[in-house]
């Protein structure tokens, strides 16, 4: 009985400070008939409000993962798209886009971090998992 009451509490404490994240690799294009799985309408709406030159977005890869506080996790979203996310605590993350650079940013629920680089038609979208 005591064990049954205590375990959920212990589990909740262990997960405190962990960040459940979702990273998506998204291809941008201006071709309405582009093949591929379209991104979620919510994400597409956010991307369309950014000063990017594309009007249509399809999903190339997605990963959901959890990063413990002060820990880092490397995720490969597809060929040539590798990111590393470090949980700095207080809902702040350090996102490293391989070969491009590093971004330190608060990432509370509902916030979205989008990054990419020239010579590519794709962006990485990072947010807390629902």
């Amino acid at each position, binding site marked *: 009985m005591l064990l049954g009451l205590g375990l959920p509490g212990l589990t909740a404490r262990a997960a405190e400070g962990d960040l459940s994240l979702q990273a998506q690799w998204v291809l941008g294009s201006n071709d309405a008939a582009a093949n591929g799985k379209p991104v979620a309408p919510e994400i597409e709406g956010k991307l369309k409000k*950014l000063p990017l030159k594309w009007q249509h977005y399809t999903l190339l890869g997605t990963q959901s993962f959890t990063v413990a506080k002060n820990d880092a996790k490397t995720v490969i979203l597809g*060929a040539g798209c590798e990111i590393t996310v470090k949980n700095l605590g207080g809902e702040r993350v350090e996102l490293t886009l391989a070969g491009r650079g590093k971004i330190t940013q608060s990432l509370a629920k509902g916030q979205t971090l989008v990054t990419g680089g020239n010579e590519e038609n794709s962006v990485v979208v990072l947010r807390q998992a629902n």
Partner: protein
Amino acid sequence: MTLEEQLKLQAWLDGELPPDQAVEMSAWVARDPAAADLVAELRHTRRQLRSVEDAPALPETREFYWSKIERDIQGSAARSPAQAESGLLGKLRLLILPTAAAVVLTVVIWAGHLYPAPVVPAKTAEADTPAVETALASMDATTYRDAREGTTLVWFTDTPRKAPPVTPAPGGPN
């Protein structure tokens, strides 16, 4: 590698291929060393050509710059009705506000001495401003923040130090 394949690689590098073909080309470059070498060579050539262009250095593309101004104007237009004030009310405000601010400041300072504020993580706009480091010295990063949507865009641009390109690079912000 055939001439057609070489031309296709160049088109991919220029962002001219449709999405499905672009994905195929990415995979091909990842697994074929000869293709990867050609891509590296083309990128190097492009960088060298850019470095001799006599162009003014801009931190970001013209379209990106103006789109930020446009959004700022839209944001301030939405706020302006609330800020409208006139006549006696406005003059009274000029007197009341500084007085009220002085009183509040005095109370806050006095209370601060009694109850020192605990250290809490910053939750202001500053906390939402990303800190960006580029992987290479020749790279630039452009940041755009849409506070209403809670979205931050960081765009890395590989730019030669001598003369950054003026025209938007393929795949870059519009």
